Every structure is written in structure tokens, then in C-alpha cells.
């Protein structure tokens, strides 16, 4: 191969994909397709049979979960290099959340069928995909513990640091990570009132941990 594949170049900077063997990286990209979405379109719909896994190449997506009262809660916002759909891909079970295009999105799509062909040819590769599930499990497990054990300011600080570290895993950047979340979303994510959240954000800003922007929060720490 002479010219490097730009998709491999971009995704190879991410922690999970970058850690795979070059042969598996190539297989994934070769067996995938490029899909495009308009704002508001679903990449993955909660509760449906899993289509496959996506990596965001351009644009931004929101990961949401439907609550029993019918409302939705945002759990994460992902940008370039963000992989999503790994749970359904490996388990084959109905998806546990929705992924919605937030902007126009261009994404690499590895279908469930293509994945099954990869692990059928080489069952060891399943372990490489599970590494991504394990990473997400570790994060969710930690966040669940922090829900119960921490005062709200610390909980907010850690949630923002956690999201910023996920962004850096997707695509390493030297500058602070700007997380595109509104205060309404963030308040709901943490079970806080708008007023309380705004007070806590001011405190974190005064400590130099974050900078609050318009519909985004820059995490400096």
C-alpha cells in the first residue's frame, strides 16, 4: 500500500482503534461503508436489533436513553473518532440507547453481519472488540458509584473530566476539550436544578477547572 487510508489515519489516533493490529484495522475499514446523516437522524435506535457499530468521521452525535416516563436523557456527546454501538455489536441483543446525529454526520459503519464475518474468520478478534466494551463498562461502573457517593460539585467535576477524557481517547488534542452540552442537558444528566448547576459551574470556573461557554463547557483540568 502506498497512500495511507485517511480513515485509518484519523481513527488510528484514537485509543481503541489505534491499539488494534494493522491487519485488523484494515479489515474493519475494508468491510465497512461510509454513511451520511442529517441533523436529527438516528444512527442507532434504542431497543431495536443492533445494526452495527459506527465511528464518527465528521460531525457530532448524542447518545440518549429513554426513561420510563417517556422523556429522553443525554448520556454523552461524541465527536470525530467516537465509536458507538459496541454493546449491540458484540452481544447481538437489542440496543441499550439511541445515537442521534447532532449536526450533519459522516460515519464509518461496520454492520453486524460484517463483524460476524470478521470473528468467524478469526474468533480471537472478538477480544479486540470486547476491549471497547470493557472500557465503556469501566466508565459506567465508576459513574454509577459516583452518583451515590459524592457531593454534587464533585460529581459534576468528575462527570465533566470523564467526558473530556473520552474525547481525548477518541482524538488526542493538546488544547482544552470543549464539550458541546447545554446547561439544561447537563442539569438533567446530573439530577440537579438549573439554578444549582449554574452555581456549581461558577465555582468550578473560579477554581480554573472549566470555562463555561455558549452551549458548551471547556474542560481545562
Amino acid at each position, binding site marked *: 500500500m502506498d497512500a495511507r487510508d485517511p480513515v485509518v489515519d484519523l481513527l488510528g489516533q484514537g485509543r481503541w482503534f489505534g491499539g488494534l493490529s494493522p491487519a485488523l484495522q484494515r479489515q474493519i475499514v475494508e468491510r465497512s461503508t461510509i454513511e451520511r446523516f442529517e441533523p436529527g437522524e438516528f444512527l442507532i435506535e434504542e431497543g431495536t436489533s443492533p445494526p452495527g457499530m459506527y465511528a464518527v468521521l465528521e460531525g457530532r452525535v448524542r447518545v440518549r*436513553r429513554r*426513561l*420510563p*416516563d417517556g*422523556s429522553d*436523557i443525554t*448520556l454523552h456527546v461524541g465527536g470525530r473518532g467516537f465509536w458507538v454501538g459496541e*454493546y449491540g455489536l*458484540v*452481544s447481538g*441483543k437489542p440496543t*441499550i*440507547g439511541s445515537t442521534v446525529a447532532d449536526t450533519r454526520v459522516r460515519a464509518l459503519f461496520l454492520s453486524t453481519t460484517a463483524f460476524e464475518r470478521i*470473528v468467524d474468520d*478469526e*474468533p*480471537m478478534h*472478538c*477480544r479486540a472488540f*470486547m*476491549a471497547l*466494551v*470493557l472500557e*465503556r*463498562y*469501566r466508565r*459506567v*461502573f*465508576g*459513574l*454509577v*458509584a*459516583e*452518583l*451515590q*457517593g*459524592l457531593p454534587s460539585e*464533585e460529581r459534576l467535576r*468528575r462527570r465533566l473530566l470523564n467526558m473530556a477524557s473520552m474525547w481525548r481517547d477518541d482524538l488526542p488534542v493538546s488544547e482544552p476539550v470543549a464539550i458541546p452540552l447545554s446547561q439544561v442537558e447537563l442539569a*438533567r*444528566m*446530573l*439530577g440537579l436544578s438549573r439554578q444549582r448547576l449554574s452555581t456549581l459551574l461558577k465555582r468550578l470556573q473560579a477554581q480554573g477547572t472549566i470555562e463555561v461557554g455558549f452551549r458548551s463547557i471547556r474542560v481545562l483540568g
Partner: protein
Amino acid sequence: MEISARDADLLRQGPWFGHLPARLQDLIFDRSVERSYGKGEAILREGEPGKGMGAVLDGRVHLLRRAGDANEVLLDVGDTGFWFGHYGTLSGGAPSIGSIVAITPVRTLFLPVAAFERIVGAEPRFYRMFADILLDRHAHMFRYLAEAQGLPPEERLRTRLLDLAHVRRASESRHRSGAVSIPVSQAELATMVGVSRQTLSALLARLESRGLIEVGFRTVRVLA
């Protein structure tokens, strides 16, 4: 290890273990060791390299996780048929993300990481079967993460009880449908949901009056 017919039956009743091919079940029995722990002893310690995975044969354990610098949070209670240690094992020995502590004398079946690696090294297809147990827990944790913040405390408690019932149904297939008794004290439940004892007691009374649970002595029966 030489496993008794009673212990083998008990583990085969769980849907995860029960659905494994007989050859893999036998390999797990064969390559596991029996380990006993005194009350208060740590079976797995958060932050230490994963040593392996196991199942409680007798006794009760707590799953704990440090949040912040000081306090440990109770995330789960497990008794006979409860599997633990799958994160550190499936990752091939990554640091444990929680601690498992015996709160009574505990007897376990324990599959060390090296034995696990030998099993999946010889038959890579078995790896995915081991992964199923973690995928199931992941789905529940993910849901709880969403619901814990978005729902009022009464619904949050209900979600937590349904999860506990799910894990118990998973370990006792004869109870897969219908009511499940969860041997959990109100003090334990209060810390698991993050409310005071007084609030918990009021929330339980409300769920009971809705016909969803029955509160007994150190147990909660989940009806629906």
C-alpha cells in the same frame, strides 16, 4: 476442582452458566479451585490486578467501589450463584474496578486468570461466551446511570430492586418468572440508592401499597 453434585447443580441453574456448552462448564469446574473466606475478608480488591472470576457457593458478598478519595459505595449484594470478577478476567488481568468483600463466611468456586487464558487460548470461541455475563451487567449499569439521575427516588428504588431481582433470577432459574425474594437489609438498600434510612422506609411503603413489593425481615420480595 472436585465439585459436589449440589454445587454443580446450583451453578447450572443460572442462565449464564446454565447456557454454556457442557464442555465449557466441565472445563470451568476442572480448572477452578475452591476458596473460602472469613467474614470481612476481601475476595477481590479494587485497583489490584484482576486475579480471576468466581461464583459464590455459600455465604454473602458485597460489591464495593471507591467514589472520590474516601468513601466506598455499596453497588451490589450477592449470595449463592452470584458471579464476580468478570471485568478483571475478560481484560486479562486489568486492575479490578471494584472490591468483593465477604460479609459472612463465604465459599467460592474461583477460576484464576491463568486458567481462563488457557481455556480461551485453546478455544477462542469460548471467549465470547464468557463475555455474555459482562454484557448483561453492562446493559443494567447503563440503564441505571440514565435512570438514577432522571427519575424521582421512588422510581429509582424500583429500578434498583428490579435489577437486583434480575441478577437473582439469573442465578435461580426456577424463579425466572414470578416473585423474587432479595435478601437485602434496609440499611444496605438505602446506601445502594443514595437516600437516608427514613426516606427509604417511606419509599418502600409506597411501593408496597402499589402492590409492587412485599417488605419482610431483611428481605424485599419483588412481585412485578
